Each structure stands twice: as C-alpha cells, then as structure tokens.
C-alpha cells in the first residue's frame, strides 16, 4: 500500500468519528441552536470591534497603517507561541498516549504514514480554535484596508504553512523530550515544555515591550518611533513572515521571497521532522510505554485535617479531586506557567505610563483602572476554563463508581465546585489586590473590584463546571486538551459574555464618575449610590449565571443515567 493510501486509511477512524459526533450534535436541535447562536454572536463581535478599532487606527496619518500591521504581527506571534505549546501537548497524546497506538504498532504500517497521519491529527486538534479566531480578524483587516477577493487565497496560502510549522516543531520537540527524559516520567515533559513556553513568552513580552508602542514619548524622536514600527519585530520567526505576506496581500502586492521563505520552511521542517521521527520514534515509543512512578508520596494529610469538619462524602470527594490533580503532571505543570503569567501581568500593569505625565488624561486613567477588572476577569475565566471545565470529563470511565454509590448528583457537583472555587477566588483576589495597589486605585473602586471579582469567579467556576458537564470529553488521554473542545470554546464565549455584561453595566452605573475626570470637569470620587447600583447589577448577573449553571448541571448529571 502506498504512503498516501495508508495515510488516508489511518485518518479514516478519526474523521469518521468526527462526522458521527457532528451528526449526533445535529440530531440535538437545542444544542445545535445554542452552538450556532453563541458562534454567530462571537464572530460579529470580534469582527466589528476590530474593524472599528482598525478604522480608527487607519485615520492616523503615517503611523496608523504601520501600527495595524505591527498589531497583526504581534497577534500572530502570540498565536504562534500558543500553537507551539498546544502542539507539544497534542503530540504527546497523538504520538505516545493514544489508546490505538499499541494495536497500530503491531501492523505493518509505514512509519512515514503514521507520522503524517498523527501530525495531521495534532495540527487539526491544536489549531482549529486559532483558525476560528483568525477568520473574523482577517476579515476585519480585509474590510478596513479594502483588500479585494484575492486576499482570501493569500490568507489561505499564508495560514497553511503558519499552522504546519508549529505542528512539526511541536511534534519534534515532544519526540526529543521523550527521548531525553527518563521514560517513567514521560509526562513530565509537559513541565519542561511549559517552562520553555513561559520563558519564551516572558522574553517576547519584555523584549518587545509592547507598552512602548502606545507611549511614543519614550522614543527619542518621531523618526525613531517610525523606524521601530517599520522594521520587522522578529525577522527570524514564521509569524513575522506570515504577517508580511498578509500585509502585502492587504496592499495588493506580493513579495515572492517571503512566500518562498514561508513555504520552503514548512516543507523543509516537515521533511526533517519525518526523518527525525523515523530515526527516534520506535525507541521513544517503547520508553513511553514503561510504567509511571510507582509509589505515591503521602499527600493531602494537611488538607485532610483542614477538611476534617466536613461530612465524610464531601471530604473524600474533595480529597480525591485534589490528589488526582496534583499527581497528574499534565495538570499541575501548567500552574507554573500560570504563576509566571500572573507576575508578567502585574509587572505590565505597573509598566503602564498612567501616572507618568500629562499625556494620558485623568479620564483615561480612571477607565484603565476600571478595565483592570475586565482583564483580571478574563484571566480568571481562562484559568477556570483550563482547570474547572475538564473536572467532569476527567471522571470519564470511572464515573461508574460515583453513579453506583449512594451519592447525590448535587453532592458531586458541589464538591467539584468548591474544589475549583477556593483556589480560583484566592488567585483572583491576589491579582486584584496586587494590580489595584500597583495602579493606585481609589478606595471605593478598590472595594467594588474586590467584591466584583469574587462574584465573577463564583460565576465562572459554575459556568465552567456546567459547560464541562454538558460537553464532556471522556475519551481524551490528556487533561490539557479537554478545554480545546467545542464545549471549552462555548464556555469561554459564555463566560466572556457575562463578564462583558457586568463590565458594561458597571460602566453605565459609574458613568457620572468617569465623566468627572474629563478635562474641564470637577473631579470627584465614586458616589455611594453609584457603587450600590453597580454592586446590585453585578450580584444579579453573576448569581443568575452561577445558580442557573449549577442547577442545569445538576439536572444534566441526573439525566445522564437515562442516556
């Protein structure tokens, strides 16, 4: 059988399964409507917001289009980093942990076919969400910069190698890490991958110093500033080449050299990746099959004491969740990334030139202080998506034990809710207090943001849990992959929707206070009545979302018995 036929054959079970999943979704009209409505709402929001922003940017003479292209390059660089990490995680599942691999390895399938098939799977599962976000982004660019129909094939031609390169590099990195690490701790490679990604991210953020772009005064003169915008930010990275190709496409021109660079790199790396795979994979696969660390460290003793006042069932459910979390490297290794991201976030907040001089108005400063709530909320929503959303899916094939025990669905739900809520609330409060202190937020706003973030965290945790119960991914071998499912995306849309609603409503309630910061007005602090209205709205929105989500989730767990 030729490599092409084997490749198609190897992919067949996956795409057939995907088609069946899609058709089963089709059969559930309510679910389809929900998915459609949320998807339909998200794309226009991204498209319209970005289009409006880009249109405003375009009005700025000379600098505007340059800033827009730099923004695209920065976005693509961020996506490239995410794709790389996502592909490393995906490749670990596809190449080493998938349940069908032992059976496949006993068949006379060519190594190249297996490599290409698993690479395709890794690429698709790691990239679809990025691709989905890029569609309205590129559409907005095309609209604002009047790109013709030709921009469509240009986008496709640029994005294919842009997605292939991180998939190939991510798969090769996983292969090398499995090779280097003691096989018994093969999953620990995620820790290294995570730390590597963090190092790259910190480096990128600090080297690029994006805050300088919005603070031209930090440059010696305008010429310096323009020069810094014109030059490529990272000329050796495929994300920059992709940005160059796309910007050329927007202007109706094309630089053959960039095209050749992008495609030849993708093709060359794929060839190298295939050779590396052929050389190392058999030995690496064998090593990865060896058992994990045998003896468990006694863990949770302190927690046992803390939880000793709880009823036995709840205590054991929480202890089980905590133990399984901290013993699974794919789970806790990402906490390190999280910790560094928090530091970077707080640092960058401190780096904002809010109190530096007269260039930024008091009104803008107040708005930024207020929007810190939105940013912190976004971070917490994303973290809940990563750690709380998979909670029910991870029960997966062990769910029989809970279902055949005398435990109510509500008890299972509540234990998972509290297990997620307590650490998330602590993190949210830490983030809010630190950033508020760094930014010098006035007392009433400080208090309001603290209460709001606690309520929002309660709501995000409930929503993440509920979406995870409605869209479980029981077959995943890797917890880190679960949030990249359709349910994970829907959760993020729902959570960001509720966050947006809270921020808008609070903005409306505090509009008088913001306006008082405009030039020519008398500055004043937040009135008690304004704070009360903002709080009432926040309590209303978050509690409706939280209670509604938990009730729906409980009903769903019960109804699964009849499924």
């Amino acid at each position, binding site marked *: 059988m030729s490599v092409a036929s084997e490749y198609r054959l190897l992919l067949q079970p996956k795409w057939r399964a995907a088609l069946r999943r899609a058709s089963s979704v089709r059969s559930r009209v309510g679910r389809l409507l929900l998915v459609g409505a949320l998807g339909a709402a998200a794309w226009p929001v991204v498209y319209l917001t970005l289009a409006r922003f880009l249109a405003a940017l375009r009005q700025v003479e000379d600098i505007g289009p340059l800033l827009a292209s730099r923004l695209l390059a920065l976005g693509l660089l961020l996506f490239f980093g995410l794709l790389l990490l996502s592909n490393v995680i995906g490749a670990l599942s596809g190449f080493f942990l998938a349940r069908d691999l032992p059976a496949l390895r006993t068949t006379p399938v060519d190594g190249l076919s297996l490599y290409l098939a698993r690479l395709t799977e890794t690429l698709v599962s790691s990239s679809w969400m990025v691709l989905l976000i890029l569609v309205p982004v590129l559409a907005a660019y095309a609209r604002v910069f009047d790109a013709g129909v030709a921009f469509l094939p240009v986008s496709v031609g640029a994005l294919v190698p842009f997605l292939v390169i991180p998939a190939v590099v991510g798969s090769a990195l996983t292969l090398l890490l499995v090779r280097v690490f003691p096989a018994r701790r093969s999953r620990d490679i995620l820790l290294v991958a995570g730390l590597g990604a963090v190092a790259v991210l910190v480096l990128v953020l600090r080297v690029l110093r994006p805050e300088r772009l919005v603070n031209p005064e930090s440059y010696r003169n305008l010429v310096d500033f323009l020069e810094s915008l014109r030059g490529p930010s990272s000329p050796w990275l495929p994300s920059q080449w992709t940005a160059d190709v796309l910007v050329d496409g927007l202007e109706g021109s094309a630089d053959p050299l960039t095209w050749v660079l992008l495609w030849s790199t993708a093709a060359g790396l794929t060839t190298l990746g295939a050779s590396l795979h052929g050389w190392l994979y058999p030995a690496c696969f064998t090593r990865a099959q060896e058992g994990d660390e045998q003896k468990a460290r006694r863990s949770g003793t302190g927690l046992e004491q803390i939880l000793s006042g709880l009823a036995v069932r709840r205590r054991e459910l929480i202890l089980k969740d905590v133990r399984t979390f901290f013993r699974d490297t794919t789970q806790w290794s990402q906490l390190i990334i999280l910790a560094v991201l928090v530091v970077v976030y707080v640092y960058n907040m401190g780096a904002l030139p809010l109190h530096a001089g007269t260039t930024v108005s008091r009104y803008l400063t107040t708005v930024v202080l207020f929007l810190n709530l939105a940013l912190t909320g976004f971070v917490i929503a994303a973290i809940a998506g990563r750690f709380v959303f998979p909670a029910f899916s991870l029960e997966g094939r062990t769910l029989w034990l809970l279902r*055949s025990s005398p435990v109510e669905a509500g008890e299972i739900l509540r234990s998972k809710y509290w297990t997620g809520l307590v650490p998330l609330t602590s993190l949210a409060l830490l983030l809010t207090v630190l950033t508020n202190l760094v930014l010098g937020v006035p007392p009433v706003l400080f208090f309001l943001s603290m209460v709001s973030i606690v309520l929002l965290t309660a709501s995000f945790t409930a929503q993440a849990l509920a979406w995870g119960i409605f869209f479980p991914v029981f077959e995943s071998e890797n917890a880190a992959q679960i949030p990249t499912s359709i349910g994970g995306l829907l959760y993020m849309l729902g959570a960001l929707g509720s966050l947006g609603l809270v921020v808008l409503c609070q903005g409306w309630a505090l509009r008088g206070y913001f306006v008082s910061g405009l030039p020519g007005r008398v500055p004043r602090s937040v009135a008690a009545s304004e704070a009360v209205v903002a709080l009432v709205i926040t309590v209303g929105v978050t509690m409706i979302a939280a209670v509604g989500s938990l009730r729906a989730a409980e009903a769903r767990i019960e109804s699964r018995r*009849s499924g």
Partner: protein
Amino acid sequence: MIELTSLTKRYGEFVAVDSLSLSIAAGRITGLLGPNGAGKTTTLRMIAGILEPDSGQVCIGGLDMADEPLATRAMLGFVPDRPFVYEKLTGGELLRFTAGLHGISGSAVERRIDELLDLWDLVPWKDHLVESYSHGMRQKLILSSALVHAPRLLVIDEPMVGLDPKSARILKDLLREFADRGGTILVSTHTLELAEVLCDEIAIIDRGRIAVAGTIEDLRRASESHDAGLEQLFLRITRGETDHRIASLLDALA
C-alpha cells in the same frame, strides 16, 4: 432481594433490554448468562443505578430504586466489566474513597481495607498508584472496593477477568461464603464452568429477555436435555450451536 419487573432499556432504536422480569432471593448466587449483546451488562448497570430504565421497576431489599435511589445503592457493591478506576490514587486511597462515598470512615474502615488487601496479597501495593497495577490487580482492587462498605448485595460483571488461578479460587470461596452468610450475588459471566460450579440459579438472557431461569435442573427440564452440561444447555437455548462456517473459513484461509 432483587425484583426486576418489566424492565426495558432502549438505545435509540435498539432495544437492549426488553420487558425483563426476574426475581432473586436473598442468600443466593444467581448467574446471568447470555450471548454477546444480549443485554446482560445493561441489566446489571440498571440494577447498580448507573442507568435508568426506560420503563419497568428495579426493587432492592423491598425498596423501589426510582423512589429510593440512595438507600438502594447503599445496599449494593458493584464490579463493572472493565476495571477503570482513578489511576492517580493509591490502592489504599481508592478503598478509603469508596468507603467515604458510602458515608463511612475511621478505624473500622482502615481495618477492613487492610483485611481486604491482605486477602489478595495486595498489602505491599497499598501505597502504590493504581496506574502501576496490573489488570488482575485492578480487578482485585475493584472487588475489594465493592466489599469495603459491607454490602448486602453484590452485582458483578465478569468476576474472573485477569485473575490468576489462586485469586480465582479465593474469589469463588469468598462469594460462596458471602452468600452463605445471607448476602445476595448476581453475577454475569461467559465462563460457564464458573457458573455451573458457583451459582445456585442461572438466568439465561437472549435478545434482552429472560429465555429461561432456575436451577440447572430446571434448565435441563425446560430444554428437555436431561444429562446435558451447562454449555450444551446454553447453546441450545440461545441457538448458538457449532457453526459450520468455521470449517469453510479455515479452508479459505488455508
């Protein structure tokens, strides 16, 4: 102890269990036999409370499972056909967790955990993660988790999977002793020799319905095969006698 009345379960168009009725007395071991896809596992999962029937009734210890789900589940210990458990817990932690789900903890539970692990020679593995257990060791651990809360009823889907001869012997003795002390056992198996030796009664399920139920003597009488063994009875009742296609298939392969 178990009373199933007109139990029905459909998966879409497919009727997995079709108006099944069965009565199992306390202190008895009943074997549920049947060809693949006959509805055994679905029936056991409905008794264990994992699945809800589309219609019909499951009564355990005189309580209707639909009305008293927690009380009925508290009475039983369940062993599924595939030993999936939390890989990142140790054997000891898993048993403590299962006991906790039944609302019990403390020194009595710890003692019982040690006794159960000792029975299966798993004491040296008590603090090892389940992911390092072999298939047979996991089966022993799940059998222990079904017993840790001292249930009155055991529902076991394929008990001998992965067990070595010594452990299989221990399990047979354990189940017999459990029933002799008044416990009730419903066991589904394809190992007809086990069913013949262990079970007081046999129920043969075919296409979602009970084809025949009773002692082996009852089965012989029902199928008019007076000195037939369980295998012959089973094949006759389920119309699964030797397939002549085997010879032609082997010829083709040769």
